[in-house]
């Protein structure tokens, strides 16, 4: 069979249709309202430097879990990905599943935050947030839900403070940083991270954007914009597109010293597998993690390949380890329609079973 069924009249029609959509839709683009992100009502319960700790308001008709869950997002990009819009919100669906949800917003570090180390983030900021929540709820232990780099931080934290974590959930979290399909890892091996940090101080968000876009340059910097024409006419869909666009390029700078240690210890030395990671003056040993662990990964993740996350199996000291595989990508796991129906409810059920 011939592989092309392109009739000239169809082509002409397609082009005209395209230009019609573009012409009509650009009006919507020029008149697009301000993009709002983070839709679920929340209250600030703690602040320190640029960090904010929020508690989300539960729907009135939902019985909340006794043990709250703290979402630890990555330092890369902004945490409103978990609460992007009303029908795409992991937070909202966790609340609907009866969870009491807190979230750390790390803020936008600037040059004055350059010297913040992983010790400052994990044994400092994160530990103080956990203590605030424990105190508010008069509990010894709370649940942690770490996302991507935040998952790696949560693993370190739980290993160092096992007495404060009741259940640990890791989402799209890299554990083995040197799987053969890890493009980011392959690129970073030859980079002189000391030179980078000594020169730049903090790592600019633009450098991270470039790196992430370079993973799939043609789809992410070209094809995507062509697809946008299909949504230009629909104001709501256009707004969703622009919201995602805003998130992608809303990249905070990275505190230099933390970036230095994270890249060296994990990307270059594969510290969770090979050992040698020290946070402050204490070594990180995943065998110290004895609480139940739920490890969630995305099957089409191009940033954290599934095998990079699966590596967690057998590394912790937990006798209650569960894996949840999601058929989607690194971002889709938070925002796709399928994810909304599958992931937060599954987390809710898993936590409820361990809260009996």
């Amino acid at each position, binding site marked *: *069979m011939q592989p092309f069924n*392109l009739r000239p009249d169809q082509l002409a029609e397609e082009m005209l249709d395209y230009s019609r959509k573009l012409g009509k839709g650009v009006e919507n*683009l020029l008149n697009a309202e301000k993009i709002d992100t983070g839709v679920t009502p929340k209250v600030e319960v703690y602040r320190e430097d640029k960090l904010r700790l929020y508690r989300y308001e539960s729907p009135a008709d939902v019985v909340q879990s006794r043990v709250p869950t703290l979402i630890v997002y990555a330092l890369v990009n902004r945490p409103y990905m978990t609460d992007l819009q009303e029908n795409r919100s992991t937070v909202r669906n966790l609340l609907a599943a009866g969870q009491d949800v807190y979230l750390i917003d790390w803020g936008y570090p600037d040059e004055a935050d350059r010297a913040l180390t992983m010790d400052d983030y994990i044994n400092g900021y994160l530990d103080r947030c956990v203590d605030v929540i424990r105190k508010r709820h008069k509990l010894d232990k709370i649940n942690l839900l770490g996302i991507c780099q935040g998952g790696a931080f949560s693993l370190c934290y739980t290993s160092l403070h096992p007495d404060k974590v009741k259940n640990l959930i890791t989402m799209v979290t890299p554990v083995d940083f040197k799987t053969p399909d890890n493009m980011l890892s392959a690129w970073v091996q*030859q980079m002189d991270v000391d*030179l*980078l940090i000594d020169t730049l101080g903090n790592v600019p968000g633009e450098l991270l954007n470039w790196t992430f876009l370079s993973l799939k*340059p043609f789809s992410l910097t070209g094809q995507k914009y062509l697809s946008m024409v299909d949504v230009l006419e629909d104001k709501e869909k256009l707004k969703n597109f622009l919201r995602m666009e805003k998130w992608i390029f809303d990249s905070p700078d990275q505190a230099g010293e933390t970036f230095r240690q994270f890249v060296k210890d994990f990307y270059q030395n594969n510290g969770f597998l090979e050992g040698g990671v020290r946070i402050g003056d204490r070594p990180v040993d995943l065998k110290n993690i004895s609480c139940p662990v739920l490890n969630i990964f995305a099957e089409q993740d191009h940033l954290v390949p599934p095998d990079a996350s699966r590596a967690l199996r057998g590394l912790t000291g937990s006798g209650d380890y569960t894996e949840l595989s999601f058929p989607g990508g690194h971002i889709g796991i938070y925002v796709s329609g399928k994810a909304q129906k599958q992931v937060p409810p599954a987390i809710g059920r898993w936590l409820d079973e361990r809260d009996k």
Partner: protein
Amino acid sequence: MSESAFWNEDWMKTQQKYWEDWTEMSRKAMGLEKPAKSPLESAMEHWWQGISPSAGDMTSDFMGKMMEQTQSYFRMAEGYYKNAGAGDSWLDAANRTVADLRKLFTGSVDNVFSGSETAGDDALHKMMAFWEMPMDNWQRMVSSLSLMPGDLLRNMPHKEGLDRFLSAPGLGYLREEEGQYKQLTRSIVEYQRCLGEYMGFFSNLGLLSVNRMQEKIEEMAESGKQVESARGLYDLWVSSSEEVYGEQVMTPEYAKIHGRLVNGLMALKQKLGQVVDEALGGLNMPTRRELRTLQDRLQESRREAKAMRAELEGLKEQMIELRSQATSKPKASAVASTPKKKAAVKKKAAVKKSRRPAG
């Protein structure tokens, strides 16, 4: 669908006429004497030129990206159509399209897309520029880290003999300063070399993508799948390019080139920073180096202060707990003694009950 049924001469002639009439109509509508570009592409450009001044910076940049892609998309569809019109079999048309794409990447650009483009055409170069996207992204990033727009060093010429000159030791009172500037120049030369290496790596990938696209077309023919739109053709090209890119950038060779590019830029920026620091020091102004020392010391102090505050809070809580334990002790002992009394009473009662006669 058989080939002869679809691509028979009459049908093709009819469609060719339709396309040409439509093209002609669009051309006249645009007031163009000569169709240098596809009518829609020209219309797009014209329309965008009219509308872009009213768009904000962000929207303008955003729409600019979309327009670039739109033009690639139109060019590809039109190129394919013209090839299809020139022959009587889909295989010929597909082969010609692939051959045209190949020409774009090998530099022999005459008669590409049935003569619709000629060497030096802007549109053609834009088509080739598709594979410059990774480079373009790099330049945007470098530009964002610099005071100067774009990556000024990209096209700066350098001679190999310069390295020899730069290796010569400095002399006299300004020896150190001269050495510093020589190091800076050497860093510039080295970064240029890395940049050239990086660009060189991508230069061959366009051709590999064309070959991959041809393989995909052959696979589609075998499996019975079809491309049914210009967009489908464009997507096929993107997926071919993305696949080839994905394979090539995972090679150890690329990791080294990428590492050298980033390291080269950082070394250069570090040298520039040192020169700027020297100048600031000379003006008796605070330097970056001094600020960083202060930042480190300040963070150390804050870390200690926070740890002490936490310890103090812990001690306070312990003290409050101890106090409350101390004040509640007598009560607690009183509470503890009461049940004993009650128990004693109960015991006595039980004894009394047991003394009662049964029945």
